[in-house]
């Protein structure tokens, strides 16, 4: 089991969701986040006071998958979020020690899907 964490452009969320559904990955958690990468933030001005390089809005997806779904999930997120410029985001893949479905108490791979 792996946990796939994807940080993407907010406006790419719909496209990424479509691509994920196409490879049968339907379960995810979505959060609004801010952050900074190689894409510089924009200067904000409040009553003449400049605040350079503020953090940019991004969307974070947390997707838990079984091994067979790891590569299809990475490909789907990439297809949906890719524009080719800095700021497209990143995908992190980490080992997942356990997964428990609260309603039934099931554990492990069966609890993920």
């Amino acid at each position: 089991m792996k946990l796939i964490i994807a940080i993407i452009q907010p406006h790419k969320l719909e496209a990424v969701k479509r691509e994920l559904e196409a490879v049968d990955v339907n379960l995810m958690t979505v959060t609004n986040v801010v952050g900074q990468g190689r894409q510089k933030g924009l200067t904000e001005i409040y009553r003449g006071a400049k605040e350079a390089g503020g953090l940019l809005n991004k969307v974070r997806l947390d997707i838990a998958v079984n091994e067979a779904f790891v590569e299809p999930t990475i490909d789907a997120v990439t297809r949906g979020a890719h524009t080719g410029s800095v700021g497209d985001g990143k995908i992190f893949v980490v080992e997942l020690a356990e997964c428990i479905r609260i309603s039934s108490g099931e554990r492990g791979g069966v609890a993920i899907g």
Partner: protein
Amino acid sequence: MHKNLSIHLAPSLLKSKNEKILKRRFTIMNSGDTAWVLTASALVLLMTMPGLAFFYGGLVRRKNVLSILMQCFIIVCIVSLQWVLFGYSLAFGPDFHGIIGTLEWAGLAGVGAAPNSNYAATIPHSVFMIFQAMFAVITPALIIGAYAERVKFPAFLLFTLLWATFVYDPLAHWVWGTGGWIKSLGGLDFAGGIVVHVSSGISALVLALLLGKRVGYNHKPIRPHNLPFTVLGAALLWFGWFGFNAGSALAADGLAANAFVTTNTATAAAGLTWALIEWWHNGTPTILGTATGAVAGLVAITPACGFVNPMNAIFIGIIVALVCYTAVAVIKGKLGYDDSLDAFGVHGVGGTVGTIATGLFAEKAVNAAGADGLLFGNLHQFGIQCLMLVVTIAFAAIMTFVIFKIVDAAIGMRVEEKNEIIGLDLTQQSEAAYTVIE
């Protein structure tokens, strides 16, 4: 626009030694009328900001809300100045061949405390002027709904100034200015169904078509970021609209009362009808639908409110809800143009319904200075209403097209795709409405 003064009182009182005082009180200036029109002017300002600003502001995405508030706010600044410098004179100044006012009243020359009996004999001319200023302000602000979320700020400023000068001012002159050709023809538009709503609504459609869709728009509405804002804005519009419509009587009298009552009645009927249509069509009524229906009702009753009775106002409210719902929920999706906030679907279509309804339901029993409509046997008036509608649609569409092309060539109307994606608040104004992290 009418006047029913008690001028006939004057002759019998002429010999009185209080002649001058009485003349001033009864035939020249009326403090009740003046107080009401001043109040109504402030109410109409409230419609643009915060009314329209929050109505539209809630409907856009969170990254663009400040752009809407800014556009509404700065329109008040720009058009107020344009109006006192030359706009009022173009619209209401001494007539030039029925087409435009001359610049004789530019800089408000001669527009002061003395009444102008052609427009309103019982209030200072400057009060009539500032009341009309608020109409000139809100009309280009209504168009914001069509180009929301994708217009370049400097282009918006230039477009607004040109549109106010070359579309609104001539049109206001035709319909309301002394000597204006539609007014001379007998066209009825009590508070601006044609001048304000049809003109802005049609221009909105032309702009939406020329600008193209927002990035990511796919035949269905982009979700509103703050519906409570939108409902607050709609409620403020309803409140301010009493100044817009009842104020257009230009007096605190029975006609103002009729306009007030018909406005409230048609709006109530339209809001309820829209909710019921949604209930039947989608299974649940929504607050966005009910508020939208109410605004459509306000738009449709605007040209009619001083000419129709309250029972017919109910019909107007029901009809406009049916027609605007079809335009917004069915036709727009099929045709695929991106009128972001339905400026055309509500104001263009609603204004059209109201103008035609005026030609149907108007009756002299309500307003002797008006005319009878088709339902009272006057086909001629119905024809005039249709003619002014067609002329306004053609004029607004062509002029908007020309102004768009000029501004697009000079500055570029649409923001770069990258900036549209990041949002107008950050890219056009360097500020953000909401923080994710403190």
